[in-house]
């Protein structure tokens, strides 16, 4: 199963909310995948095992993993575009 990680500053609110939104959107499209929310400090430990990184903390370190804009899933602005991108990355 493909793995998606969402990271934010403390891992308590923003990343959890985005992860839950992404999970339900993928589910509606019949895409089965593991979505996990972490705090930014834990990201280094798991980044090598994920297929897509959904970022909420801008200007943070960049990784060799395809990245999607997480704030779109929080505010709804630009969400269709980012969701398309995510779906393509999970194909």
């Amino acid at each position, binding site marked *: 199963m493909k793995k998606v990680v969402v990271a934010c500053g403390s891992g*308590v*609110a*923003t990343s959890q*909310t985005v992860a839950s939104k992404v999970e339900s959107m993928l589910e509606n499209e019949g895409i089965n995948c593991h979505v996990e929310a972490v705090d930014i400090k834990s990201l280094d430990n798991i980044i090598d095992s994920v297929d897509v990184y959904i970022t909420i903390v801008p200007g943070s370190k960049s990784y060799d993993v395809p990245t999607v804009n997480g704030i779109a899933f*929080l*505010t709804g*602005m630009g969400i269709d575009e980012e969701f398309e991108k995510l779906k393509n990355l999970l194909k």
Partner: protein
Amino acid sequence: MGILSESINEDLVILDIDEQDKEKVLQILANKMQEMGIVKETYLEGVLNREEIYPTGLLLGNYNVAIPHTESKHVNKNAIAIAKLNRPVKFKYMADPKMEIEVNLIFMLAISEPKNQVPVLSLLMNILSNQDNVSALARARNKEEFLQILKEKEVECI
């Protein structure tokens, strides 16, 4: 009543704040939550520190919001404190901390159990991601009207 309305305590809804300083506004909300035993005295500092590094201002359109919060260790129980500002207050933008945005509504989150709080936050964000809803809340004339709008929008968003 929905899960969001249920988790909002009327005493934690403060409308018509004239304060122009972000820290002072957050202090008003944090003090209120501390008085009620919801957060610890370290909460405000935790929020302000986090806001510097990982800001929570969200650009939504004509009216913008901020969702300041911090780690669970500063919190005793889940709650949301709300401030409606008479004049917008500058917050750093979540997507670009170098940028400042004018915020009209603040939803200050006290989160003690992140997993349990997700449905409430998701619902809140669903409501706020519709600009018409945000405008209606920003224009509410009093607390009753504000809470009534939130209740109605919650039902539409479920």
